[in-house]
């Protein structure tokens, strides 16, 4: 009797990042959901769908007046102990309102225009358990701080070897895509910060395995070099508000200027560089005689088979290292530090090794991915309050880390994608009175770095500024 009763009851549950439907006869499932998302899972004898479909499944079941039990949500309302939200500027208010219409979708705003304030306003308004997903640990902790400041809530942390889940929590993409299958039904709202990170084949699970009916994506740019930005609509929702960077310029952002400084390798470096280039070129040319498609991947695959390939590979790495760590760069840095003495200065480099070399040479703090929370805070605050005159960072500061007062940035090499250029410019563009911000770009002349620099200037952010050669 009990068994029969249980079988007739339709139940929707959350299981390992999927929705599981039991107790509904096949013909009825097929009638209510003719176009999916449910798939018969013979392994377990039930209907299964990705958790992301929770909202549409609920809407559909309500529409047909089905008798069912919803065991998915493990969320209830959240009270904010001490809300302390600043008034929003009109364009920020417009962004919040646009998102609130459907409580899902992406907001595109340039860095420095207060995306965080917009998101916190939305979070406060919804007042439901919320997970904030950030690209890196620094940003995760920054969100933790901002939630504490603005809402008085001590959020849980998932990532950086911490696993403390609370109704409002912060995490990183890498942790979210692994753990979402465990807690995808504990958050009603997921905020994807710098959401262009989401559509990767693995990371997208952070959205797909979540049952959250409310989703907010934040980004300064929707561009992805693989064109996957279109995936954001099914994963988060459509773009509900967009503020172009040119609109932001000169209003809430400081005016800025890009100065490009080409440097020459020292004669010894140049000789060595050309020597290494020849090794690589000769080897690849030889191989292309028999295999016209011979490229990087093939070279990697061959390093185990022939000492020559390994030699070519070593030459390639040595070459890169020369251009990255050219002595001249240290001299240029000396000059720039002198020129801007008294102004906080940010230096971006392409590798941890270079960041440490600069740190050891100039005795300025460096931020690397290994830096712990305490040290990161000390360094970031120290730069802000003038304790430290400058800071050198590898990629960890690429995105969104708050550095309000910085007006001078130096880029020493680095990758040339359009997104990175915008993000890095964003660091310098913080509003700070009438002071103009400067971004110096130091590249080795006659090397690959110069090509990357050209590519970088092709992006939207650079096209609006003046270029000057020293």
């Amino acid at each position: 009797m009990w068994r029969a009763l249980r079988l007739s009851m339709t139940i929707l549950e959350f299981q390992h990042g999927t929705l599981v439907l039991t107790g509904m006869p096949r013909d009825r499932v097929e009638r209510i959901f003719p176009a999916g998302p449910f798939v018969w899972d013979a392994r377990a004898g039930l209907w299964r769908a990705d958790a992301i479909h929770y909202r549409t499944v609920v809407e559909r079941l309500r529409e047909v007046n089905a008798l069912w039990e919803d065991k998915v949500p493990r969320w209830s309302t959240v009270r904010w102990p001490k809300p302390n939200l600043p008034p929003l500027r009109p364009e920020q208010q417009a962004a919040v309102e646009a998102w609130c219409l459907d409580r899902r979708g992406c907001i595109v705003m340039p860095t420095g225009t207060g995306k965080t304030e917009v998101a916190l306003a939305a979070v406060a308004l919804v007042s439901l358990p919320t997970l904030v997903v950030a690209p890196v640990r620094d940003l995760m902790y920054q969100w933790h701080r901002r939630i504490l400041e603005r809402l008085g809530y001590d959020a849980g942390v998932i990532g950086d070897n911490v696993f403390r889940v609370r109704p409002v929590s912060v995490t990183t993409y890498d942790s979210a895509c692994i753990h979402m299958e465990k807690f995808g039904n504990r958050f009603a709202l997921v905020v994807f910060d710098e959401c262009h990170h989401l559509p990767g084949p693995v990371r997208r699970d952070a959205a797909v395995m979540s049952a959250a009916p409310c989703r907010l994506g934040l980004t300064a740019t929707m561009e992805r070099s693989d064109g996957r930005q279109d995936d954001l609509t099914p994963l988060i929702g459509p773009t509900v508000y967009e503020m172009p960077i040119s609109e932001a310029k000169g209003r809430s952002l400081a005016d800025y200027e890009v100065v490009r400084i080409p440097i020459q390798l020292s004669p010894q470096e140049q000789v060595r560089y050309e020597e290494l280039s020849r090794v690589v070129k000769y080897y690849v040319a030889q191989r292309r005689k028999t295999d016209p498609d011979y490229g990087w991947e093939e070279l990697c695959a061959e390093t185990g088979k022939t000492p020559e390939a390994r030699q070519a590979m070593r030459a390639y790495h040595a070459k890169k290292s020369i251009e990255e760590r050219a002595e001249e760069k240290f001299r240029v840095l000396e000059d720039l530090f002198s020129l801007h003495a008294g102004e906080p200065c940010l230096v971006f480099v392409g590798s941890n090794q270079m960041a440490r070399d600069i740190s050891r040479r100039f005795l300025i703090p460096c931020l690397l991915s290994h830096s712990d929370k305490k040290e990161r805070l000390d360094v970031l605050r120290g730069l802000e309050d003038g304790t430290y005159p400058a800071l050198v960072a590898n990629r960890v500061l690429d995105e969104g880390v708050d550095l309000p007062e910085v007006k001078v940035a130096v880029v020493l090499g680095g990758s040339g994608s359009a997104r990175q250029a915008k993000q890095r410019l964003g660091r310098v563009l913080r509003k700070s009175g009438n002071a103009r911000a400067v971004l110096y770009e130091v590249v080795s002349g006659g090397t690959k770095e110069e090509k990357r620099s050209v590519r970088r200037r092709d992006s939207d952010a650079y096209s609006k500024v003046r270029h000057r050669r020293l």
Partner: protein
Amino acid sequence: MLRREHAIAEYQGGKVIPDRLGQKQHGHYLGYARQMLDIYARGVGQNRRQLHRAVWAVFENEPDCPARRIEAFCKLLDDQSEFEEDRGGKAAELRRKVFRMAASKHPLLSRADRLFGSEESAVKAEIAEKFGRSWDDIDADLFSDVFEFRRLKRFEGYESAQALLARYNVAQVQVALFDAESMTVWATEDFKTILRYAKLARLMHTIQRYGDQGYALRFDGPASVLRTTRRYGAAMARFLPALIACRGWRMHAVLRTRRRGWTVALQVSADEGLTSHLPAPDDFDSSVEEAFAAKWGDEPRDGWRLIREGGILHQRQKVFVPDFLFRHDDGRTALMEIVGYWTPEYLEAKLATLQLFQDQRILLAVAREAQQVLPESPHTIPYKTVVPMQAVLDKLNES
């Protein structure tokens, strides 16, 4: 376990062949393995970068060794090592002090021939004096908490040079599995162990008979029914050493390559000589089983042949592998489970399992202590210390 950046594999006709050090072609690697183990065994106090450089030096003149293989060895050696952790954040504290001292002198110039700024060497000498140490000492400690500068504290090692090479071979198959979308194992033995470890790795199974002795076991995860996903590849990699420790299996995994998105197959079997670091599964769960099997022998009795754990009962994701399968010359089969007395919880779980498979005819040899707990059934054969052979035969012949 290795990481993706250590993976070495060849692609041939839709198949992936993970890097494998064979005795014939790589016999001389035993010497390298000994040298590497020696470097770590004597390396306590050295930092990771020094150890890795020493390992690289071992392969200096070896033409047949890709960089990734060397890096993989470093990782496998690190995996068995304990490194100093700088728990109190001593290096970070040193940095904090040094950078604060230098802040007022910023920028440090190579030659102070200008009006402002200070000379690098002078500032460093001054700081060194305040610490009462040489600048080189301070410089060496400044980033001693960074991964590659941590010092080796303890090296647990590998059983032997062979064991290190064996682990390398398994690790390359594991890392290939990171890209796996599904895995099928054809097994003729050790079903129980295979299924148990797959479950421990949180994999889901689909079980089908294969021939009259074996089973095809397909493994993937919850979302696999919705879309192809590499999500469960890591779980399959974790499961692999347990599978390798078993006998009589063949494995086929479907992989999707990261860069090009091609589908390729990975095939491994028990007779390829891969060696697991896990022990082979025990033949018997208890001495009662072992004694019964020994007494029955390899020859059929009344036409019934005894096969240990020869049949899998399964319903959705619940699995039950009874201790014995009897197979008659005329094709009839029967299952038998020996229920000793362990704890009330054990009996309860056993009872629940038996109820789930109540439509199956399973002979139950029940220890006297357990008889009060288990309900009476026509399939029950009570025993005191030894399962009575004749009673089992009688029950078998009733069918």
